[in-house]
Each structure stands twice: as C-alpha cells, then as structure tokens.
C-alpha cells in the first residue's frame, strides 16, 4: 500500500516535472483562457445565457468524440446523434421513471452508449467509408424513429420530464471541464501510436496492415470511444434541459455534429469546439437579425448550418482552426533538403548456412482460369537477398501477397521457422517478422516521415495502448519517447534524417519509397518482402538502395526483392528466381540466370533467340 502511494506520488512528481519542462507561452495562454471561461457564470452580464453556453459545451464534447471517428479514423459517421440519444434517454428513463440518482444514471448511460457503439461498430468499421456513412445514417434514423414510435419509452410529444438536478452553473463548469479533458485526451491520442496508426490505416489500409496495424481493432476503439463520449454528452445535456424530447435527437443533430467537426477542421482536436462555436455564432447572429425583423429564425438553423458548411468546403475545406493557425503564421519553417549520404557497408559477409527462416511450399493461386502462381516453392535463409524477377504479369506480386497473407492460397503453405502460418492475416504475419512493402502506394502521404516509421514501430509498443496513450501515463510517454528516438536514428540511417518532420507526401517519389522501406524496418522484421523499391529511382537513388540492402543483409536480414532493375539485382542478390506465367522457370546466381536461354526467351520472346 505504502509502495503504491509512493509510486503514484513519484509518477505525479515526474509528470509535473515533465509538464514544467515542456510548458510554453501557448500553454499559459490556453490555461488563462480556460480559467477566464470558468469565471464567466460569476462575472458575465445578464444577456449571456449560461445555460446555452453549457449546452454548447456538451455539444462540443459530443463533437470532439466524433472527431476521433471522423478525423482520426477517416470514418464519415452520421450517427453521433444516435449515441447522444441513447445517453439522454437512458438517463431520462432511469431518473424520471426508476427514481435513480443522477450520477449512477449518467454512468449507466455512458455504458449503454458504449455498448451501442460496440454493437454498431462491429459491423460498421469493416466497411468502405461510403457504406459507413450509409449505415450510421440509417442507425440515426432507426433510433429516432424508435423513440418517436414508442411513446412508452420516450414519453411521446411531451417527452420525459426529469427531476431537477444540479444547477446551471454547475453544468457550465462540468461541461467546460469535461470538454477541456476530452480535447486533451483526443490530442494525446492523435499524437500517440493509436492515432498515427489510425491515420495510416485511413490512407492506405493494406499498407498499414502489412506493417502490423490492427486496423479493425483500432477503428472499433475509435468508434466506441466516440459513442461513449456521445452518450456522456447526451446524458448530461438532457439533465441540463430538464426534459428528454425525442425530436431533438434526430438526423439533424447527427448532421450538426458532423458539420462541427468539418467546420472546425479535422486537423486539430480543437476543431470540433471551434465548429460548434462557429455554428452558435452564426445561428445566434441570425436570431438577433430575425428578432429585429420579427421572424422566428430557429427554423432556418439547419439551412444556415448547411450553407456555412458548403461555403467552408467550397473554400478548400480546411476549417476554422487551420485557417486561424495560418493567419497567425505558426507554420514551422521548412527543413532544408539534403542529399542523403551513401552509407558505407562493412566488407565481410556471412554466407547463409542456417536453416531457412521463410519457406513457401508449392504455393498456388488461381483467379478464375488464370493461374497466377503455379505451385511455386522458395526458401529464404538469414542474411540472404533473393530477387524475384520476371516479365509483367508473371506472378511476382502475387507471390509476395501470398507470403504476406493478403491472398489465401488455393494450394500449398507458408512456414516461418518451420511453423505453418495457415490463414494468418497480414498484420499477424508482420508480428511474426514477415513485413511487406507495397508496389503502388509508397509512404503514408499525410503523415510525417517520422510518423511513417512510428506506424511500423507499433508492434514494439508494450505500454502504448489506447487508454495509456490517451491519459499519457509515464510508461507510455517514456516508451513513446524511446521509439521516437529510435525512429529518428533509423531515418538518419537511410539518409533522410532531415525529413523527419516533413509530410511524406511532399517528398520525392524515391524518397517516399525509402521512407516506406524504413517503416517496414521499423516493424523489426526478419523477412522483408520488397515490391519494386527502386521504381522511378535515379542512378543515385538506386545506389543508395543498393547500399541499404547490402547492409541489411550483413545484419542478417532476409530479403525477398521483386525488382525490374537488373543492375540492382545483379549487385545485391545472392540468388535469383525467375518467374513467367505463374511458374518458376529458373533459379541460380545472377550470373547463371543471365545466361539462361529460357529466361531470355521469357523476357524477349522466342523470336529473339
């Protein structure tokens, strides 16, 4: 017990020390702003409607929750209103009908919304973004229609009247505190491993899976967290309102929260709050104008929200927060591009005499009548570079996908260290040391080069789960710092140290491919499956790649290289496997294969002989 107290005290002291050392003028300004906001109910003039602002905090809380799904997860959810409704009506039923106190009712509401999130999310997160939008839209309608249709639950047109609870001022302070906490947690998640992995999976799901990202689990986590936060916001907002009215929680609420996220800007966790504030300002202004003209303007709110969103989207769709940042001019200065140095290679090489790490045993894959891989076998030992070459459409990429678990073979099996991998999906194989880079998409363009590597580092995280990251526990922070340092040095190793904080999409094509290879290395593979890493590269780029692969081989890495650049193949490959029309037609050293008549025929056609 004493030890626990001491440990906790130590951790707190350490956290305080960290916070002090990282504290900047921005933090002071933000803290001052929050403190000022907290004083508003006490000092505000009478025309400030504290209850409306408190309700705005709850809406912003729900929108911040939604931000996790939309901005981090890339899932266009139109269903956040449904989770607010679940929270609101759980609280309403428990307090008004069952006589529960507010606190346990609110907790049950959060649990109910989270449970709803699990049920809906389990199906939804696997879908394409379009279908996510459709199913969450139907979910929102289903909940509303259910509430409107079953008056025994929702109280019909009168709604359910809640017993009076905490004061409006308390709601205001509670809403503010929860909102600040939610924004901090969301920002922490976005910066940490889970957020980076979600953003990677949003861009190129297959590449993220190849690096071992548990895409479905991460997305479900984001979806359920959104739902739980939505349920909390709904459960509290209904207590503030004093009555639960089903028509308040319809499709329009879901739309409004979605709008808030986009309006504020998906790039920042502050975006949803800014979006809700922007919406409130515009509808408030319209209300003032309307009252001057004697028109009841609330009816025009949806129209204003819609037009505001269309305007923001038409102007480039960045949203309020990024716009403000640009106006304030807080863009970091651009790093200077430096030509990567060619890393020197130790001379000695260890010949591969150990048992094979990776074995493909008569792998067959058919697409209809086309046999893309016809009983292909190969073996890789530690410290060996094996090149897989052949004309276009000969089945090279199919082989990589079979080995990486993207395709299920029609026959044959893949073994690692003698153990059959069975139907293990890509991310499981990555965890067992088989990591692939993709041919088409190089790096994750929206992530910085460093973050690209951190996607691969995800497999090494032991304390970087969503909860620990969200609340930035000392262990999680320490581990994150260590991994970032590792990623930086790995990036420097491939000659891209200068690009650590540059968005990968802004790098040149060959540099992006290097980033992708480095990200695969970050996953700590023993077998590296590279699909045309030299595509689009200049001579210089190729010799850098050459040096990198040679060094990896010396370090004992096994590399299966699909490559069209025969100069690179001749230079780095210990062994070459030539495929044509789905079958292996030759194996041997680069020199052997170059003299093989069948190989020349496959590349050049019979006539060339």
């Amino acid at each position, binding site marked *: 017990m004493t030890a626990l107290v001491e440990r906790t005290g130590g951790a707190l002291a350490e956290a305080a020390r960290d916070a002090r050392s990282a504290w900047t003028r921005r933090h002071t300004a933000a803290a001052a702003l929050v403190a000022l906001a907290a004083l508003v109910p006490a000092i505000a003039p009478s025309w400030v409607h504290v209850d409306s602002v408190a309700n705005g905090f709850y809406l912003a809380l729900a929108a911040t929750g939604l931000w996790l799904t939309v901005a981090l997860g890339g899932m266009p959810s139109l269903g956040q209103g449904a989770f607010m409704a679940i929270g609101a009506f759980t609280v309403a039923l428990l307090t008004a009908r069952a006589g529960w106190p507010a606190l346990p009712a609110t907790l049950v509401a959060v649990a109910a919304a989270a449970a709803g999130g699990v049920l809906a999310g389990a199906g*939804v997160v696997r879908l394409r973004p379009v279908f996510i939008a459709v199913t969450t839209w139907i979910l929102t309608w*289903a909940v509303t229609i259910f509430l409107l249709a079953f008056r025994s639950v929702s109280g019909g047109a009168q709604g359910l009247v809640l017993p009076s609870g905490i004061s409006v001022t308390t709601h205001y302070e509670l809403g503010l505190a929860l909102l600040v906490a939610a924004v901090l947690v969301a920002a922490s998640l976005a910066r940490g491993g889970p957020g980076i992995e979600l953003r990677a999976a949003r861009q190129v799901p297959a590449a993220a899976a190849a690096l071992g990202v548990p895409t*479905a689990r991460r997305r479900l986590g984001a979806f359920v967290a959104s739902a739980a936060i939505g349920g909390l916001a709904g459960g509290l907002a209904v207590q503030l309102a004093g009555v639960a009215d089903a028509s308040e929680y319809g499709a329009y609420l879901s739309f409004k929260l979605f709008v808030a996220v986009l309006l504020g800007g998906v790039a920042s966790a502050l975006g949803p709050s800014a979006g809700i504030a922007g919406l409130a300002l515009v509808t408030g202004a319209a209300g003032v104008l309307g009252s001057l003209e004697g028109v009841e303007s609330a009816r025009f709110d949806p*129209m204003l929200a819609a037009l505001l969103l269309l305007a923001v989207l038409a102007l480039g*769709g960045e949203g309020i927060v990024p716009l403000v940042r640009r106006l304030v001019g807080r863009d970091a200065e651009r790093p200077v591009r430096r030509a990567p140095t060619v890393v020197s290679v130790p001379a000695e090489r260890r010949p591969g005499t150990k048992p094979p790490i990776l074995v493909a045993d008569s792998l067959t894959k058919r697409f209809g009548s086309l046999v893309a891989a016809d009983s292909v076998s190969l073996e890789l030992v530690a410290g060996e570079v094996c090149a897989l070459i052949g004309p276009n459409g000969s089945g090279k990429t199919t082989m990589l996908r079979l080995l990486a678990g993207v395709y299920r073979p029609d026959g044959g099996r893949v073994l690692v260290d003698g153990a059959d991998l069975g139907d293990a999906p890509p991310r499981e194989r990555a965890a067992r040391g088989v990591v692939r880079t993709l041919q088409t998409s190089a790096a994750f363009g929206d992530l910085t080069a460093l973050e690209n590597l951190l996607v691969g580092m995800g497999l090494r995280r032991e304390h970087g789960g969503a909860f620990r990251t969200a609340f930035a526990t000392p262990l999680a922070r320490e581990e994150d710092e260590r991994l970032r340092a590792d990623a930086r040095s790995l990036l420097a190793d491939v000659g891209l140290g200068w690009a650590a904080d540059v968005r990968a999409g802004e790098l040149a094509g060959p540099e992006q491919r290097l980033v992708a290879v480095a990200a695969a290395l970050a996953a700590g593979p023993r077998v590296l499956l590279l699909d045309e890493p030299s595509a689009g590269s200049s001579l210089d780029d190729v010799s850098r790649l050459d040096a990198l692969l040679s060094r990896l081989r010396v370090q004992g890495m096994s590399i299966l290289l699909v490559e069209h650049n025969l100069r690179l193949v001749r230079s780095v490959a210990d062994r070459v496997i030539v495929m044509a029309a789905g079958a292996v037609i030759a194996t041997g050293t680069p020199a052997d294969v170059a003299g093989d008549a069948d190989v020349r025929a496959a590349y050049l056609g019979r006539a060339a002989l």
Partner: protein
Amino acid sequence: MSLALQVIVTGLAAGGVYGLVAVGYSVIYRLTGIVHFAYGELIALGVFVTLLVAAGTGPVTQQTAGTARFVVALVVGVGVCVVAGAGSYLFAVQPYLVRGSTIGWVAAITAVAFAIQAMLAAIFTRPSYVFPDLLPFRRVGHDGFVTVGGASIQVRSFFVIAVALALAAAAGWTLERTRVGRALQAIASDAEGARIVGVPVDTLVAMAFGAAGGMAAIAAVVAAPSGAVEVETGALLGLKGLVAALIVRFGSPLRAMVAGLALGLAEAAIANAHIGSFQLGASYREVLPLAIVLLVVALWPQLEAVEELE
C-alpha cells in the same frame, strides 16, 4: 386470406415507390460511387413544388385543383426536381469526387438535403398537407375503396403499382437500349476510360442525377394523394429507398426494384402481424426493417473488408 390480399396490395403500392427510389440510389451509386443523401429531399422538393403550383400553400381538399393546372404543376415540379438534382451533382458532389474525399461529398450532399428540408419547412408551415388527386378514384367503389373477399383495398394502390412498374421498366429500357444508356453503363464500369474515349461524363452523370430525381418525384406525386404529405415525408421516403438499395448493395435496377417491393411488403406484413394476441402494429413497421437491415450489414462477410483496398 382477405388480410393477406390487403397486405400484398398495400405493401406493393408502398414498395413500388420505395423501389423506384432504390433504383435511383443504385444507378447513381454505380455511376459515381456516391450515395445521394439528398435524394429523398429532392423528391420532397418535386412534390411540394407541384403542390405549390397546383394549389398554393393554403389548405386544400382533394378536389380543389383543376386538371390543366395540375398538369402544369406536375411538369414544373418534376422540372425543378431534375434541375436541382443535376445542380446538386455539379456543385455539391463533383468537386469532392475529383479530390477523392468521401468525407467531403458526404458532408456536402447532406448539407444540400438539410438546406432543401429547411427551405420547405419555412414555406410549408402546417404539420401536414392533403395532396390533390387528379384522377377520380374516390368515385370508384366505396369512397375509393373496394372490398375484395373481405379485404378493403384502396383502388389508387393498383394505379401506384402500375406507374411504379412502368417507370422502372422505362428506366431499365433507357439503360439497356439507348445510346445514352450504354454511355452510362460505360461510365459505371470505368469512368476514366469512358472520359478518355470522349464520353461527356460529367454532363451525362448530371443528367442521370436529374432523371433519377424526376422519376422518383413522379412516383411520389402519384402516390402522394393516398395519404397525408409532410415536409419530412421526403426524408423518410429517401431512407426507405436507401434501406432497400443497401440490402442489395446498390445492385442492378431490377434487384433494387425487387428490394423496394420486398420492403413494402415486409412493412405491411409487420404492421398486421400478430404474436399470440399481440399485434405488432405501425410502430414496429417503421423500426423493424431498419433494425433488420443494420443486422444484415453487420453480418456481411469480409467481402467489404478494409484490407481489400490496396
């Protein structure tokens, strides 16, 4: 037996309209890869513009409008719907399709939906409207109802079913047999390829958006006099069509139509179903199909899994 007949006729009449909406969703999805979240509101726009021209915003009975005025109204209503449909594609969808931003077009098209709904709600302020009926079905049978084998059936229902099927057949014929239809099929299978060989992709897709809106609006106008019309009716109709289209994964027009009819039948059956002595009734009719479709989607095989996209 009599109950079954009643369920089938009312179910098919509702389902025919759902089916047409589902056909519209499917055609648009296959052409562009987007789901037209403003479709229901566009239909409502067509219906309410027709109502505005035919009878104004005041109270109407089913007999108020004259035939000539009603025909003009229908033409104007469907015309507005076509123009708005094409416009919503060009201004709200196309820019984001070019950028490849799903979140962008979802936001934009949903914004269009709420803008239309808010505009209609501002003009048509009464909770519900009666739609004038051009054809004198009231005079047939007992105030528009006939009794067949003990079942009381609205005569209009047969007319609605016939119009829906005719429109669906016309849409199918256009897609299969005309130059424009073949061009649309080319776009659906490979938009970039079609663009390269000189198919005016954006124009044709905008036309398809307009036509889909107009077609569904006609069906909605035809069905409207059978019950009360509210501003939210469009959104609900859009929702039902979406459910039908989703269950066949935005498949061929024929399958979408069948799914719509099936949804209509299912609703009618649920409304009249008994479990023991407990009648499920209208509440369940609205909720159960939505719950079922969500469940079905949740159980879809890994086909749609994210790893597929490389």
